[in-house]
């Protein structure tokens, strides 16, 4: 029982990081970044090559992964999403654009990195034995959880207390009002998109130390991220965090009792039932 709780919390903290990036992009641009999972995958590969192959220190590799993805985010936003958002008559357009970028990233990764599952050495060795062998907590898992919690807190503080952070919240609340107040909406939107992308990259870079990475995991991760933000309510940070932990716990319990594909089937069914009663998630605002 303790073991399940620990597994759930560790998974949940990493998942919360993934969901936070997705929800941020959604909150600011009203675009669901379907390529979020693919960005996660690229982050994983960046850390695999930098830290696993070239021996760059892990913290540097992780930051570089975040930076690379942030840059990709800026380019995507500037050259793909902004034009479509400015021109499209139907809201479907930006979504299809996002799906296109997801296909693109996945297949570029497939041709560049191949299909093989890659892993890197663990961050720290050793296992913490709790409660006389009742539960095991490898230090590497603990490290991943702590680092992702650190990133989550840093982001929340940034959004809450800095000037660009306040601008981000303003744009999320009301684009036109923010513009009238002198916020450069274009720059802030780009910033938000790139932070979202960077978070995906960092989450990928962190989790590659535990689960490894392969070019095909993108859709899987995106699907999980969708579940998390639908549970919590799209566009709300607290919702993303709660959703992340909820999914982490559900997975930990499910994997303990059932085969993994059955677990996900039940999670999907539970989510659909949940959305009948709370169509906007736990904290979401009513939005079309």
């Amino acid at each position, binding site marked *: 029982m303790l073991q399940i709780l620990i597994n759930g919390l560790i998974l949940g903290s990493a998942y919360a990081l993934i969901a936070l990036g997705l929800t941020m992009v959604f909150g600011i641009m009203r675009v669901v970044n379907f390529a979020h999972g693919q960005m996660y995958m690229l982050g994983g590969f960046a850390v695999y090559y930098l830290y696993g192959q070239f021996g760059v220190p892990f913290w540097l590799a992780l930051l570089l992964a975040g930076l690379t993805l942030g840059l990709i985010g800026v380019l995507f936003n500037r050259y793909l999403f902004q034009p479509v958002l400015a*021109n499209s008559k139907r809201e479907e357009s930006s979504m299809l654009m996002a799906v*296109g970028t997801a296909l*693109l*990233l996945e297949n570029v990764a497939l041709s560049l990195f191949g299909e093989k599952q890659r892993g890197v050495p663990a961050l720290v060795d050793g296992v913490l034995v709790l409660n006389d062998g009742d539960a095991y907590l490898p230090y590497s898992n603990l490290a991943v959880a702590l680092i992702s919690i650190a990133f989550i807190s840093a982001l929340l503080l940034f959004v809450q207390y800095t000037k660009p952070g306040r601008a981000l919240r303003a744009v999320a609340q009301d684009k036109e009002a923010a513009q009238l107040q002198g916020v450069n909406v274009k720059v802030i939107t780009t910033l938000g998109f790139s932070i979202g992308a960077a978070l995906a990259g960092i989450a990928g870079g962190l989790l590659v130390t535990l689960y490894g990475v392969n070019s095909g995991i993108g*859709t899987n991760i995106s699907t999980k991220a969708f*579940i998390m933000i*639908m549970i919590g309510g799209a566009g709300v940070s607290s919702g993303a965090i709660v959703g992340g932990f909820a999914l982490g716990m559900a997975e930990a319990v499910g994997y303990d009792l059932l085969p993994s594909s*059955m677990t*996900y089937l039940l999670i999907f069914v539970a989510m659909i039932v949940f959305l009948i009663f709370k169509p906007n998630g736990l904290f979401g605002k009513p939005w079309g």
Partner: protein
Amino acid sequence: MQPGQRRDSFAILLILGVLLVLPLGIGQSRYMMSVLMNCAGMAVIASGVWLTFCIGRINICQAGFALIGGYVTAILIAKAGLSFWLALPLSCAAAALCGALIGSVILKLKGIYFSMLTICLTEAIRLAFLNGGSLTQGAKGITGLPQQFAGDSALPLYYLGIALLAVALGVVWRVHYSRLGGIFRAMRLNEDLAESFGVNVWRYRIMAFAIACALGGLGGSYFAVFTQSIYPQSFTVEHSIYYMLFCFLGGLEYVSGAMIGAFALTILFELLQDFQQYQSLIYGVLMIVVMLTLPNGLMALRGFSFAWPQRKGAAE
């Protein structure tokens, strides 16, 4: 008839006509036939996605309903020993029923929530069949379905495909260019307003979604017979996304859009055999390019200029 409608009917009749006489021209090359059958099946499924676009919902679970149709056909033929001619309408009905049931729950979600949920639904349906025990035979799927038409010729199966395509287009045409189509358009533009004019939005939404799912089931059933097998990987999220791309490429304003997109892309890739391994990559790039340059699809090409869209400014 409106000019757009005339163009639409012209495109449909032209393609169907060409398909009807084509076997005379190309001889009965099995390869060509199978490419065209593939196109026809995809077009049937994609026209369902097109119909859900009409009510302003982005449907990414069409592959799931195609899977339902395929499995129902396979189970009815292989396990229950029914004839194909009974299994085909039954699987169509089963997909419609599932669609109506699931739709009555999820259709109150809008926009992006709906799309995210439908992606999850594709996965959920796939997992359900994967865990179906001895009925669906897990990851192996149901293979070795008997060939439906005696003899070596692919012609009967080919004409079946064309007939199904004609039925699908007929249904969508009937819906789109009637009072019902007007209601759907009103619902897409403003659901609340439509409701305030006395439209029973709930009922029409489910109706549209059930028809769409029925078309998915029909196509899936056809594919199961055509490939003589069905397994959970037959239709995945990726396929759902392709169907969406077909609709967008062909044009969302024209009934023929889904069909034109499906035929154009599938045939294009058969011609570019050497690039088969990059198919998804090219789809991805194409999707981005289409979104940037052809927001109204191929069918609108002559009516609208083939120019980069005008910038309206950043305001929404």
